[in-house]
């Protein structure tokens, strides 16, 4: 038996993974791809546009986009300072605080919703005070949706930004200080621009997560059309009454998420740390 190869593929065996690994990886790819292919196959394409533009669909879509953008904004406003403290500020119990802030990342979202209820619900820890002071009822309101989404989505931003802050060269902040920059000015003009790619990536991840939030939202905010019924909730509901609409809405959400993932990859590659070209 000869092992001689000739022609263009002469050296292909040098880099190609073993056949068994290729086969198993192919099964894994199929595992991920098949549900989406099935979904696209089942969609009643003829009625797609009319199903998508029904008032109930449009209402859910609008509500989802509004609430998820609010949740993203809140995640940035609170998440960046939180990431900064976790990355830079050593205090006793930091590991515990960190784990606590990232807990909702691994928690079943329904449990998150129950916990939110225990804190901000009518009989919750702060429920009465919030109502007395601000006349605010979070559960079963649009604000409650935003709260639930922020609770679930913010850790994605915190993780990404914290990693970027840890990887940053502190000397450039030192340089800023010696040039007369206050801590705040150095943060704003030096640190923040340096972590911008990570901040954008984190915000996009958080937004995608908020857009897809289901468990915590339905537990804490309920399922009221126009007020708390976001896209995932309306997909779940439509599955019983109008499967065609559920499929069309699902395709919309898949398209959005897929686009986010593709753009994110470019963001990471484009925003990687640039070294000095020559020394």
């Amino acid at each position: 038996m000869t092992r001689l190869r000739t022609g263009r593929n002469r050296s292909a065996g040098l880099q190609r993974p073993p056949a068994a690994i290729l086969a198993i990886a192919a099964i894994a790819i199929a595992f991920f791809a098949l549900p989406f292919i099935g979904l696209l196959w089942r969609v009643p394409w003829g009625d797609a546009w009319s199903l998508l533009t029904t008032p109930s669909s449009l209402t859910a879509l609008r509500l989802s986009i509004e609430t998820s953008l609010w949740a993203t904004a809140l995640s940035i406003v609170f998440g960046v300072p939180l990431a900064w403290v976790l990355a830079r500020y050593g205090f006793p119990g930091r590991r515990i605080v960190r784990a606590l802030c990232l807990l909702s990342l691994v928690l079943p979202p329904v449990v998150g919703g129950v916990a939110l209820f225990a804190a901000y619900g009518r009989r919750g820890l702060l429920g009465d005070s919030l109502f007395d002071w601000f006349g605010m009822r979070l559960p079963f309101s649009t604000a409650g949706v935003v709260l639930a989404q922020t609770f679930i989505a913010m850790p994605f931003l915190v993780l990404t930004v914290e990693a970027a802050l840890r990887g940053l060269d502190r000397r450039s902040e030192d340089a800023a200080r010696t040039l007369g920059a206050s801590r705040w000015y150095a943060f704003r003009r030096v640190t923040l621009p340096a972590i911008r790619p990570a901040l954008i990536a984190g915000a996009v991840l958080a937004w995608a997560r908020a857009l897809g939030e289901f468990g915590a939202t339905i537990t804490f905010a309920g399922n009221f059309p126009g007020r708390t019924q976001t896209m995932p909730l309306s997909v779940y509901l439509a599955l019983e009454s109008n499967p065609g609409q559920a499929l069309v809405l699902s395709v919309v959400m898949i398209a959005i998420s897929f686009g986010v993932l593709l753009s994110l990859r470019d963001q990471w590659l484009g925003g990687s740390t640039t070294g000095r070209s020559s020394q």
Partner: protein
Amino acid sequence: MSVEARFTIQHDSFQLTIDMTLADGEVLAVLGPNGSGKSTLLNALSGLQPIDSGTIQIDGNIVDDVDRSTFVLPEHRHVGVMFQNSELFETMSVIDNVAFGLRAHGENRNAARSAAAEWLKRFSLESFAHRRPASLSGGQAQRVALARALATRPNLLLLDEPTSALDVRAKAEIRRDLLQLRREHPVTTLLVTHDPLDAFALADRVIVLEEGRIVQSGALDEVASHPQSRHIADMVGLSLVRGEVRNGTLTTAANALLVVPADTPEGPSVASIRPASVSLHRRQPEGSARNAWEMAISDLDRHPDRVRARLTGPIPLLAELTPAGADALSLAVGDTLWASVKASEVTVTPDLLP
């Protein structure tokens, strides 16, 4: 006194003990190996690290004093720092880097930019104004970093190994810029380096740090001819010869000739010769060593492990011998003898200093 610093900093088992002063406009070089405490000294002066005992005064203001519990933040010290790796802000253009300090001090954008443009012009960097730091060479980046540090008109300038990451040509350019700066705008400067050429080019005085202590200080010539440790001897012992290289030979202003390695680029140059590579002979040497001069011994510095001789003649040199070698020649101050150096032992760098 522009700077008075008497302090200690404790880091686990390492302790830095400093007692030094800088006169107005003086350039002081701090020489020392890695881990000797040079960076800690710079951080203490710039305010990036608080001291553990003692006091630091800059321009008559106490900036750090443990007993009085005074500590001035780095942004209020008016101490400019040129960092070892430039530490330019990669997200800003070159001109915005230079304008940064003025902006931080509250200048508006246009005023800061036009002042920055002047500084770039002064260092012939104006064509880089709108480039990103990542596209600069190491030497260009260091010169931008220098312009950036100076733009805020600091009372004290700290240079942290300004040439260590650069090639020979870029090193020479930075030295030229620093020297030009010294002449036009004398700024009190502390130069940290382990390259004695930096110190020779720029400094009035030198202190040597070893393991957190100042082991020697004084004029550079003095330290070079009487080094108090093996390490200092290795670090500052170089003899420098300036002149013009043509066809593998350097001609000094006094018309003395020094044969240098054959591949040396032509033009104004500085040759450096290590004392240990200078041989002494009672008679004119024959054969391989083409560089030989008749010299007189003007100074002898004897230590148990080495003898250092200062030689005057066509090309002033430092020579270092073993005590046995010195005894064999029975050296004494005032003696006349022959010194020789192999061309291959001569290191040459371009001379850009005016």
